[in-house]
């Protein structure tokens, strides 16, 4: 248990020394993407081989590392998930991609023993081999601050976090600054909430600090429910102490002594990592009573979500921590006044808290130097969908869509053609080619009817039907609607019914106008953020892709060729042998013909189920 600032500094200095003494490292990415592709087997294989060969190696930060020993480390997500499993070799900084268990022997033999690069495992783009990770275009355009530790440290070791300068900001906030200083620094930095709304964090903190109603609470929204977003997951799993440090500092600034982290149930590893981190910090005396011998005490609790998207909304989230159904309530009073257990509450998301220690350490002036005037700092994005380089990225606010999709993302995958990018999940909207030079920041995006949201960027190619995408999001929101207010409960249901009809080829004249009217009404009248933004994907796809809606409704065609019910199924008379198998399998008797002569489909009867297509032994039946 550390009793003073000096004791913490000593421990940190010692950990740093040990970390610096490690020269050779094999760092295996153990992010979700790489693990699902077999990263842990690779980690075990490396250990086996080194054991067999009698190579001096260690799985954790050694007490007295020496220059010959090799450190084998399981780190967090390196971000370039597309080409995982990833293995980085230090001190050279070489990155090996798509590593297989069979490659481990060669890596140990050539790289670890002889110091040579295995070029066939290095990343190649346009015929050029990139040995070093930092030279790869995917990484070169990024500014990794929040995610900096993710591909470097072992998240289960508090010593490694300390060795990267961990808990220095806590020290500063406890000993060198007053709570007003902390709030001023955060306000000055211009940090805005990274959960979607973009509310200035400093203002929120000062509103809580000024109240004389105790106890107060610090709550972290780790209920990252947007489909297609996994940035916060990475921070919680791969660098949990960074977020915890930010929350303790929020406690110092606002006078709160309890912190609650609300984590999504689908992230069991994040729960485990955070629990471990809290245990470690408590054992060292960085959490608990009288932190580092001061009179400040702070305790941390974890609540697991139970699968309700609406709990990402502030008042629903606090209700859920209280053990109730996660239903939003009318505001005001706002969470800063009547939040958790009806007490003043600071509620920020994971990435917002992860920025705090950086700002306290390096100062607001430094932070303001990154990003744009009104959107300072960086933003993490999950780049997914039909994109070449799917993964987790971090760029300064204001980076253009073109840089993100093409320079970092490598463009549309499999040579497809770009159609749109969906940003902000079910609350957001889509951006098209005309927005390529749009800076990604809070204000520029809200001007074009989209939001940064938590940071999911899903790229869609020409084979994606935008009407179907809108239907998909509405289906999601409708299922997640808590049912408390009528506009959201009934309105999303009606909108979904209309969209279902359209993609089924039963769209009617007036549907587009009705969707717009309903969408606008829901946005104006729903109780909470989920409802207010529910129509976003529909309204934005109508705005940019009205042609596609019209084609579905009036021509009964899906231009992207994606909607099953709008396909026409035909039998190629050249290929059909007249075996009658299709006719026997057709559930509605739409196929007729004479044996040994080409059969035909009655389009009026056909329900486009596709049963005939998969049963035809001669591949004579096609969907067009």
């Amino acid at each position, binding site marked *: 248990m550390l009793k003073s600032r000096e004791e913490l500094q000593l421990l940190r200095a010692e950990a740093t020394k040990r970390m610096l003494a490690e020269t050779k490292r094999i760092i295996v990415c153990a992010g*979700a*993407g790489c*693990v*699902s*592709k077999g990263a842990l087997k690779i980690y075990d294989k490396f250990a086996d081989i080194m054991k067999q060969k009698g190579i001096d190696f260690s799985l954790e930060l050694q007490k007295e590392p020496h220059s010959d020993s090799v450190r084998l480390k399981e780190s967090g997500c390196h971000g370039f*998930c*597309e080409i*995982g499993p990833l293995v980085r070799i230090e001190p050279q900084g070489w990155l090996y991609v798509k590593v297989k268990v069979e490659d481990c022997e060669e890596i140990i033999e050539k790289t670890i023993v002889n110091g040579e690069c295995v070029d066939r495992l290095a990343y190649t783009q346009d015929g050029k081999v990139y040995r070093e990770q930092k030279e790869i275009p995917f990484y070169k355009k990024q500014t990794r601050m929040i995610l900096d530790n993710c591909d470097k440290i072992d998240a289960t070791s508090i010593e490694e976090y300390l060795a990267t300068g961990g808990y220095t900001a806590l020290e500063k906030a406890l000993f060198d600054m007053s709570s007003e200083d902390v709030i001023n620094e955060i306000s000055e930095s211009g940090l805005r909430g990274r959960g979607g709304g973009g509310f200035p964090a400093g203002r929120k903190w000062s509103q809580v600090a000024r109240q004389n109603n105790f106890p107060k609470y610090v709550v972290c929204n780790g209920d*990252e*429910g*947007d*489909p*297609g*977003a*996994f940035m916060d*997951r990475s921070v919680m799993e791969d660098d949990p102490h960074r977020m915890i440090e930010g929350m303790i500092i929020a406690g110092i600034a606002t006078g709160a002594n309890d912190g609650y982290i609300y984590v999504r*149930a*689908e*992230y*069991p590893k994040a729960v485990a990592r955070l629990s471990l981190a809290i245990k470690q910090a408590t054992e060292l005396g960085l959490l608990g009573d009288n932190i580092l011998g001061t009179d400040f005490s702070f305790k941390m609790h974890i*609540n*697991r*979500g*139970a*699968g*309700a*998207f609406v709990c990402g909304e502030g008042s629903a989230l606090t209700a*859920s*921590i*209280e*053990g*109730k*159904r*996660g*239903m939003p309530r009318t505001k005001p009073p706002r969470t800063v006044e009547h939040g958790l*257990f009806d007490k003043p509450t600071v509620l920020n998301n994971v990435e917002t808290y992860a920025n705090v220690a950086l700002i306290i350490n390096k100062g607001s002036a430094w932070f303001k130097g990154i990003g744009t005037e009104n959107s300072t700092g960086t933003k993490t994005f*999950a780049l*997914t*969908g*039909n994109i070449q380089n*799917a*993964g*987790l990225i971090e760029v300064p606010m204001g980076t253009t869509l073109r840089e993100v999709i093409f320079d970092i993302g490598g463009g549309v995958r499999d040579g497809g053609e770009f159609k749109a990018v*969906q940003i902000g*999940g079910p609350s957001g909207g889509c951006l098209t080619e005309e927005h390529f030079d749009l800076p990604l920041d809070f204000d520029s995006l809200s001007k074009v009817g989209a939001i940064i949201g938590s940071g*999911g960027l*899903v790229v*869609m190619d020409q084979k*994606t039907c935008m009407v179907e*995408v809108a239907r*998909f*999001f509405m289906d*999601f929101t409708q299922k*997640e609607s*808590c049912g408390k207010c009528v506009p959201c409960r009934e309105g999303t249901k009606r909108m979904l019914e209309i969209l279902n009809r359209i993609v089924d080829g039963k769209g009617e004249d007036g549907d587009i106008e009705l969707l717009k009217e309903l969408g606008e009404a829901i946005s104006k009248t729903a109780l909470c953020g989920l409802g207010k933004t529910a129509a976003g994907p529909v309204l934005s796809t109508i705005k940019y892709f009205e042609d596609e809606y019209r084609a579905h409704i009036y021509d009964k065609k899906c231009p992207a060729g994606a909607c099953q019910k709008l396909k026409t199924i035909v039998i190629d008379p050249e290929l059909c042998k007249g075996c009658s198998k299709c006719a026997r399998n057709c559930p509605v008797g739409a196929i007729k013909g004479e044996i040994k002569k080409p059969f035909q489909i009655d389009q009026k009867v056909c329900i486009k189920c596709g049963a005939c297509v998969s049963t035809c032994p001669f591949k004579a039946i096609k969907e067009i």
Partner: protein
Amino acid sequence: MSTFDYTVLDNAIEQFGNKESSLISILQSAQEHYRYLPKEVFPYLAEKLGISEAKIYGVATFYENFSLEQKGKYVIKVCDGTACHVRHSVPILEALRKELGLSEEKKTTDDLMFTVETVACLGACSSAPAITLNNEIYPTMTPESAVALIKSLKENA
């Protein structure tokens, strides 16, 4: 039902504290142990925690993760998050349902071997389309590989 074993609930109450705000955590422990929430849970917790059965039922049915019906030995979740959706997750779901004779309404096979559900996002978007089998992620699936997985589970059963 005098034979019902309440130890799991008692332990959870002990661990999380006998208060309303522990309700969700206690239900989660019960769900993890039984793989669903047996009906005996409700009156017992109502009495212990001093909240009405109706309120507990309200919480249990509000959250997607709680199930009042028994789930299969193998719980398969097909991710239908945006990234998986645009990389064609729906055909995987349909293939699994067809193979096991399941539907949107009927999620568990009669022999209690398989449950097929969807999940909005696993956060494994770079491995899209992904599914999980009892929480282990299987990346870049196809309808064929999903059906093959079921077949191998059946053979090893």
